[in-house]
């Protein structure tokens, strides 16, 4: 590639890998400054490279593909390489991952300063960046799977960072195993793709689909649903969302980077990347939309009753990812990515700000012991306020535009429809409620640092019992030796930058109905709906079935594009705003104006409350239906009856009946070389005799 303007995409993931190796192998003996310098440099350089590419980027109708001469795996007819792809979608993802990733690295330098295992933390963080960037840049499903599994590994290591705590070790294991269930689907999808397309390369598969307009449903539905299973695992959707709330055992920057901004959005990215497949299966799209909407509302309702600040945010993440799935299911792929971007800003910020609060209180995570922190941590307060407004979908904050795009387009879409739009709208109200609840409980009122022991509302005790009974941390009061204090500047600068992005990040996608230009969707268009044409161009460049491809392309034109009606769109925006404001109103009522009201409501609806506090008993259900029966039958049926009984028993029987032989064996075991040599001689002689005289066998 000498004379070509190569983008050297391979450098982008490889630099963090280098940082991982340096810190991982040598970090134990290095000073903290050097460790952070390596880790920051190895994320700053990819950011700079991506920024450089972005600054020169104008347009690209055909994806740029960086191929390598030597494949990764070549066996039989199957080949898969370390090939990388670059298009608008990649660029957006790269900017989010390197940008937010770098900011969180900076924040971590302050947040983790006092922690044991500093080097380990940054090594893992760089390892995560390596795999995440591989995932985003991969040009085939197999390399994507490398990143996919790799980020799962980094997540496992970072959730279990405080590995001496059983709950942390449990949570890491749970995350990995639940994700494996998703990977099971991803793997089967790849096997199906190999058997139907003979390849896992995006360009091969999508070009093949583009050339065959007759492919609808059937095995494509199977592939799409299996890929969806993978996405559901990684992005914590129903029924596999259970690992994400537990993952909050990891250090807070990890929750921000991996479990909010980047890794958990990989499922959304994968569906958008494979949208050509999904578009051929309206059924699969419908399933995506239903799962998304159901997850959005389920997780939002659970978030309402959580008291751990990070768990509120965790359920909120699950819920917001549900929105993105809803968008995917409505075939509104650019809206899904738009929300992915704004969510990375405001949810990353929410976690970092929560971390700053926790830091200020010396490790306290329970919101019932917070309150009145507005004055103590002003920068944290104001940045978090921006994020709360953004996630609640209040204009002109970023979340408003992206959530609105999702809601309106799912209303229009045949695969999502009006009912799911309504679910999304109700979720928006609940979202605003629990976010303002968090806002009030943390920053307003009086400090409740020691309040909990005295007058705890009954529901809180119950929740307490649940938490200590479950895997969560004990609720022992944390005695901060000093008054709440604002975090150091190295943590505040990322907060401020993300705050700015949470406010203004949505302005790149203001719809025309609201006086904007919808730049974001237009920008992504060549990579999304336009991709139909671009992959077909690719196939023409490959000189394969040119005219057929053109014919296929014309057949592939969407029949009736959903009609956008500006005045209707404005009405829908208004409805979203009303939903958000009503959520705010009730939060204000319950947690500022009439603090006792929430307790009374709980009294009146104990059943519902208990259901929510126990998270709909989903964990218990899985344990009773899957985990325990599997362990029980393995222990008693397989090991007890089959292995010890039948298989070992058979062996014992043979041993018993061959007691005479056993006596002979005793001689062999004597370890005497002579007798061993004798054995060989006897055996050889017997065989020779047999061979020489007897072929009476047949």
């Amino acid at each position, binding site marked *: 590639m000498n004379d070509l303007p190569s983008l050297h995409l391979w450098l982008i993931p490889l630099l963090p890998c280098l940082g991982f190796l340096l810190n991982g192998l040598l970090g134990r003996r290095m000073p903290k400054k050097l460790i952070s310098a390596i880790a920051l440099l190895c994320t700053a350089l990819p950011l700079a490279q991506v920024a450089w590419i972005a600054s020169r980027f104008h347009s690209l109708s055909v994806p740029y593909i960086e191929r390598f001469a030597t494949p990764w795996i070549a066996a039989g007819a199957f080949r898969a390489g370390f090939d990388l792809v670059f298009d608008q979608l990649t660029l957006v993802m790269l900017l989010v991952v390197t940008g937010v990733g770098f900011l969180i690295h900076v924040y971590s330098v302050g947040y983790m300063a006092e922690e044991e295992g500093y080097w380990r933390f940054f090594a893992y963080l760089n390892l995560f960046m390596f795999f995440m960037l591989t995932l985003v840049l991969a040009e085939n499903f197999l390399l994507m799977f490398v990143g996919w599994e790799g980020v799962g590994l980094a997540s496992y290591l970072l959730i279990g960072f405080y590995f001496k705590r059983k709950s942390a070790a449990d949570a890491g294991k749970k995350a990995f195993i639940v994700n494996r269930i998703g990977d099971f689907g991803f*793997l089967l999808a790849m096997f199906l793709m190999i058997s139907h397309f003979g390849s896992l390369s995006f360009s091969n598969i999508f070009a093949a689909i583009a050339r065959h307009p007759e492919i609808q449903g059937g095995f494509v539905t199977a592939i799409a649903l299996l890929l969806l299973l993978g996405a559901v695992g990684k992005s914590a959707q129903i029924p596999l969302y259970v690992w994400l709330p537990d993952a909050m055992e990891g250090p807070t920057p990890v929750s921000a980077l991996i479990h909010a901004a980047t890794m958990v959005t990989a499922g959304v990215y994968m569906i958008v990347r494979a949208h050509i497949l999904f578009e051929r299966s309206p059924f699969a799209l419908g399933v995506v939309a239903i799962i998304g909407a159901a997850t959005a509302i389920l997780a939002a309702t659970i978030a309402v009753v959580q008291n751990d600040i990070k768990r509120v945010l965790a359920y909120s993440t699950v819920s917001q990812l549900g929105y993105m799935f809803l968008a995917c299911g409505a075939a509104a792929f650019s809206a899904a990515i738009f929300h992915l971007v704004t969510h990375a800003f405001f949810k990353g910020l929410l976690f970092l700000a929560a971390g700053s609060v926790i830091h200020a209180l010396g490790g306290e995570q329970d919101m019932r012991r917070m309150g009145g922190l507005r004055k103590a941590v002003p920068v944290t307060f104001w940045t978090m306020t921006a994020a709360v407004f953004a996630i609640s979908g209040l204009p002109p904050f970023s979340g408003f535009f992206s959530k609105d795009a999702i809601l309106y387009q799912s209303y229009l879409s045949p695969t999502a429809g009006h009912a799911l739009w309504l679910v999304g709208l109700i979720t928006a109200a609940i979202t605003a409620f629990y976010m303002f609840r968090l806002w009030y409980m943390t920053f307003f009122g009086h400090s409740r640092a020691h309040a909990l022991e005295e007058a705890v509302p009954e529901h809180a005790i119950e929740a307490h019992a649940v938490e200590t009974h479950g895997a969560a941390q004990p609720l022992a009061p944390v005695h901060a030796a000093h008054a709440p204090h604002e975090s150091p500047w190295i943590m505040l600068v990322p907060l401020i930058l993300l705050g700015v992005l949470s406010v203004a990040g949505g302005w790149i996608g203001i719809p025309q109905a609201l006086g904007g230009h919808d730049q974001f969707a237009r920008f992504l268009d060549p990579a999304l709906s336009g991709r139909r044409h671009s992959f077909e161009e690719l196939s023409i460049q490959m000189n394969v079935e040119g005219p057929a491809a053109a014919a296929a392309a014309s057949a592939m034109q969407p029949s009736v594009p959903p009609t956008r009606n500006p005045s209707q769109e404005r009405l829908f925006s208004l409805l979203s705003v009303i939903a958000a404001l009503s959520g705010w109103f009730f939060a204000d009522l319950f947690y500022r104006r009439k603090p006792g009201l929430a307790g009374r409501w709980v009294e009146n609806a104990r059943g519902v409350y208990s259901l929510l506090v126990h998270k709909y008993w989903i964990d218990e259900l899985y344990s009773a239906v899957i985990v325990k029966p599997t362990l029980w039958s393995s222990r008693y049926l397989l090991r007890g009856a089959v292995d010890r009984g039948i298989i070992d028993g058979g062996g014992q029987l043979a041993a018993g009946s061959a007691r005479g032989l056993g006596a002979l064996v005793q001689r062999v075991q004597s370890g005497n070389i002579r007798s061993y040599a004798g054995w060989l001689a006897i055996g050889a002689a017997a065989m020779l005799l047999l061979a020489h005289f007897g072929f009476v066998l047949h």
Partner: protein
Amino acid sequence: MLNHSILTIVTFLPAAGAIIVALLPRRGRVIQWFSLLVTLAFFLLTIRLALQFAYGQAGFQFEIDRAWIATPHIQYHLGLDGLSLWLLVLTGFLAPIGVLTSWRVIDHHAKEFYFYFLLQQTAMAGIFVALDLFLFYAFWELSLVPMAILIAMFGRKRGSAAALKFFLYTFLPSALFLAGILWLYGRTGTFDFVALQGILSGGSGLFSSQALLWISLAFLIAFAVKVPVFPLHGWLSDTFSEAPTAMAMVVAGKLGLYSILRFNLGLFPAQSRREAPWMIALAVIGILYGALLALVEREMKRLAAYAAVSGLGFCVLGIFCFSLTGLDGAVYQTVNEGIIGAALLILFGFVYERFGSDEIATYGGLAARLPRLATFFVITALALVGLPLLNGFVGEFLVLSGSFPGHTGWVTAATVGVILSACYMLHVTQRLFYQRETAIVRPESASDLNVREHLTIWPLALVMLAMGVAVPVWMRAIDGAMRQYAQPAAAVLTSPPLPPASPNAVRKESARAGDGRFEAAPLAVKR
């Protein structure tokens, strides 16, 4: 003519070393050092073979074919092809590692141990290069005896019982195998593999297809016990639990799997296809069964045994699907299992040597005091569960994707094994290394890896990574050798795959930088 005798030298070098060990004085660590030297030389010779191997070439290389015994007609016929190449190198690679592993553990009867250990190396090398069935049988039997003796001598608790079990499980099926060989010889008058292959594939009418089925079954049972294939695995957990690590880590997998590939598929292709549905079923049951038992196993080394039963099921599945990808994956996975299984046993051994307990539940929190040991354990666990970029993934993926088209249901079930392996490996990782320290973790014995242990485990970890990343290096030879066994693949939807990377292809697909900006590619669809 070194090229003709090199296989002989490689094969018998450890045996020669064994004889010298028998003569060496029992003083200091003379025997250990000498054995290390011999095994290193053995390893370097196998590497030399890999370097000299002509990769594009089909058939056997470095062949030697001399008359050995006139009546019955037994040839001294050795040869190496793409199937046996890496298995031989694997044997050489694990030999010095085995010596290092045993360095301190084997402190009494060291002479006997290293004598049999080296003899075992010759037996294994012989199995991989022998092309005369009788010669092969001799090496096969030779590989069983040292094992049984060493289990009896060095067993920890129930050594002689385990040795008896091993003996019964392996010697009795070998008798079947011998009968099969003799039957073949009786009709054809030759033990030579290549000659037999010609005769049997020629349809000479010497055997009825029913007779061939019986012979192939005799072979298959003998080999399947050695793998072991479910439900013939009864000996493995006792052997793993009782045998010294250096012996346990070479006993499962590669010998049996190689023999199935070489002789069952090589001599009885049609019969093997008739047996395939059964073998695939057993393989998949084994994958799930081994994983589920590993999940509830309480002892470390037995857990390694059930993990091996599960992992080896993938190899059997790949062999009997008869697709090229699956076969490639099966051979690759055979090598992987050799490396991962060895690393797992060695690491369990490190833990056992320090704290003296095999019960997983007695441990906890080792990672704080032994971070390096923990790191290597996690790497090994990840290789075992099939994390991409480590070797286990490549084998599993190729096996599963290669056998998927013909056996969708079975492969789907086998893929569940991917979930289960994560369950039991992460469980044991957590119990040993994470959470709070237990009483057994005494500070005085909780020292991290020493130099010898580093030297033992680093090569294994590096090979896991190298085989996970640079697959073509190893796959070239395997792929060439497996083509003869595979049946043609079914047609797929795509047109010919994309042309391999050439500057032109890149030029076409990438945008050009006209004025330093990316522009739309000049080619557009013409309608």
